[in-house]
């Protein structure tokens, strides 16, 4: 049995794209929520500094904490991105597994 490149590619793409889209939506929602919280904290820091509720040293430490928090948000987005790509690859391979395995005569995929 011959394999058709166009047909296989189309099936793989159709299986992969929803996984990528779903992953991107999830990541965007998470990023929006966390960035809003951090933006609010930046505004608060500015106001607290202006009203002498905190001093410069405390503001620097709190800003450093915020930088670490932001790095953790970005790292989570990187991880979610990897998971989405992984799901897309596995979905794409899964959708053509039967036809490819039948064509080659053994469980290649």
């Amino acid at each position, binding site marked *: 049995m011959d394999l*058709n490149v166009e047909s296989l590619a*189309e099936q793989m793409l159709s299986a992969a794209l929803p996984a990528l889209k779903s992953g991107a939506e999830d990541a965007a929602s998470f990023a929006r929520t*966390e960035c809003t919280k951090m933006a609010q904290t930046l505004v608060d820091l500015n106001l*607290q500094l202006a009203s002498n509720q905190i001093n410069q040293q405390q503001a620097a430490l709190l800003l450093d904490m915020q930088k670490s928090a932001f790095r953790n948000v970005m*790292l989570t987005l*990187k991880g979610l991105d990897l998971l989405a790509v992984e*799901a897309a690859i596995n979905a794409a391979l*899964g959708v053509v597994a039967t036809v490819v395995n039948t064509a080659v005569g053994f469980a290649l995929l």
Partner: protein
Amino acid sequence: MVPMKIYTRSPTRKTGSNRSQPVASRLTRPAVALALMLSIAAGLSGCTAKLIGDYDDTFDQGITAVEQKTELYIAKLQSTPNTPFDQSFYDDITSRLAVLKTRAAALPKYDILIQQLANLQSQMADFQKLDQTSPRPISAAIVNDAKTELEVSFESILKLELALKRTGTTPSAAMAPAKAKK
């Protein structure tokens, strides 16, 4: 230099021209790129792509425990701003995070979570300095700001850890043969 082209045989054409058409000319560029990428991924990883580590229940519980202890300490500072600086709290958290980092280092493909733990350790060190140097009653602004930043980190780490459960996209589920359409 002559550019290399990939050719295929047409399954339906048995006679006529021997010349096959380049695949790249009949497929869209993304489709070709996808097919190549998937072939490489399959070849490298035994047909199942694994780009990041698996969910680890011990790690999840460990982070959750650290978060609970931190929230409890912060709640005390909020409700009773005269609560004295508690070194034992920071010693406990520091040792727990170190143990979790060691565990994460032993788990395959846990680089991202190791970096997140390092960021959390840095935040805890900052929080300790703030707590230790702040006169009592401690400023509510400091406590509230620190709480927000720590929560963002805990949520980030737990969000990723829970995503690693790969609900619905486990290798076995993803690689199961597609059901024939009726």
